[in-house]
């Protein structure tokens, strides 16, 4: 554990200027960064505390009918925000399926997007890990790999992105608004996280000193038909082994007009295959239709010694999520996934 400097900022420009420079890190809730620092895995020179930036602590309506979630709004405030609960209940339920009330009270929306993998070897400073020390190797391939990827993994890395919230944001097609020394840009959620390829040290496409300003949700929230099904090794307070965020809209005849399916716990990013969603359009929701979509979503999946079961598990989870989404009223936070 190294010593570091600390600076609290109150506006975006000062934040970006303060963070510019090697070893400087933004600080949101600190629930991931301070933990990694305690494990001697993160070594910040200076922490730039963003919690004083009031303009990033707001949830605001957007002119296109969407909703802007400030990067410094906490995960709990977002989940319990009346507009989020009413128009984006999928997001609310997904956030509440992750971590604990104490962690969600500190964790920020921006920080949630940037949380690092929970791969055991990444967390063990004594192990090689291509994500932590590029080129050092990946013991997870032959080792304990229950939580690891079945899709999109590379020779160099089989880690998964652990966030629940990001799985719902992928399904909702959110946009991440960021500002850096070069100005502001908007990143579609599908392009925010990346596959490991030969550069597993990069989790996402955010630039070096770029600051996340907000997560912008489009108007479509799938409030009528959605679910977040999280399967984990204990009933509460554990990372997903497999999770599914699913939403669809129906026309007057009960046929699907738009569908979204994103998987968590299976890849280095939330896993979406738009072609699989297209298969559902024009169909009435049924076990068979969701099974077809699941086939397409999981095409090319391959597992390792301790996680091959996740291919079957994910397939069944998608079918089940499809059934659960029909009547979201039976999905209280904390409810058992059995309906």
């Amino acid at each position: 554990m190294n010593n570091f400097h600390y600076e609290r900022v109150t506006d975006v420009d000062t934040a970006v200027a303060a963070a510019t420079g090697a070893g400087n890190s933004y600080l949101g809730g600190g629930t991931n960064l301070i933990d990694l620092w305690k494990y001697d895995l993160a070594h910040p020179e200076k922490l730039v505390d963003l919690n004083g930036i009031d303009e990033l602590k707001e949830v605001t309506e957007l002119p296109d009918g969407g909703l802007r979630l400030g990067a410094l709004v906490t995960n709990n405030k977002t989940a319990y925000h009346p507009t989020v609960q009413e128009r984006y209940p999928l997001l609310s339920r997904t956030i509440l399926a992750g971590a604990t009330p104490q962690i969600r009270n500190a964790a920020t929306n921006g920080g949630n997007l940037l949380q690092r993998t929970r791969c055991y070897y990444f967390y063990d400073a004594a192990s090689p890990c291509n994500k932590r020390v590029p080129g050092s190797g990946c013991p997870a391939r032959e080792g304990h790999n229950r939580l690891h990827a079945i899709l999109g993994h590379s020779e160099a890395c089989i880690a998964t992105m652990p966030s629940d919230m990001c799985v719902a944001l992928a399904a909702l097609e959110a946009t991440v608004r960021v500002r850096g020394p070069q100005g502001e840009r908007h990143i579609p959620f599908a392009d925010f996280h990346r596959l490991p390829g030969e550069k597993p040290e990069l989790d996402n496409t955010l630039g070096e000193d770029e600051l996340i300003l907000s997560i912008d949700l489009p108007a479509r929230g799938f409030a009528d038909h959605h679910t977040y099904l999280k399967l984990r090794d204990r009933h509460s307070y554990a990372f997903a082994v497999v999770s599914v965020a699913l939403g669809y809209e129906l026309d007057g005849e009960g046929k699907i007009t738009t569908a979204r399916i994103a998987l968590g716990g299976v890849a280095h990013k939330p896993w979406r295959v738009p072609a699989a969603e297209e298969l559902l359009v024009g169909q009435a929701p049924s076990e068979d239709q969701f099974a077809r979509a699941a086939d397409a979503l999981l095409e090319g999946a391959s597992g390792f010694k301790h996680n091959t079961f996740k291919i079957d598990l994910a397939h069944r989870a998608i079918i089940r999520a499809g059934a659960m989404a029909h009547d979201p009223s039976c999905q209280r936070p904390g409810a058992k996934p059995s309906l």
Partner: protein
Amino acid sequence: MSSPHQIQLTVNGKTQQLSVRPWVSLLDALRHHLHLHGTKKGCDHGQCGACTVICDGERVLSCLNLAVMKDGSEITTIEGLGQPGNLHPLQEAFLEHDAYQCGYCTPGQICSGVALIEEGHATTREEVKELMSGNLCRCGANTNIIDAIMAVKDGAHE
């Protein structure tokens, strides 16, 4: 080495000035600087909930917060909830329901439970269990802990 920061914390109603280095956790500030030993250090990694305190009305983990981040905040620890002779209803309920064995997780459990009741998001027992999942009890008093919280939540203890 970074110079100390002068911060102000109002802890259990008493406003105090502290001089802390940036890397001092809120937990260590409470225990080592203010000598409030009720708040416990369990895992020190945000996993067990033993260090839960109420900060500006919300339950947080004092181990994953730096003290400097909480400059100007109001904090309630187990000592501030109640004292012998004048216990908080949830402290009374923990006694009545036998909601602890070794007692190490108890201050965090009680701070968490008090905040849970205040938040008002949990109605059913199942929901209370879910929203108490961040406080681990390795002795296994969980059933009685939930009993105690349900009793206070439903007004059995005023």
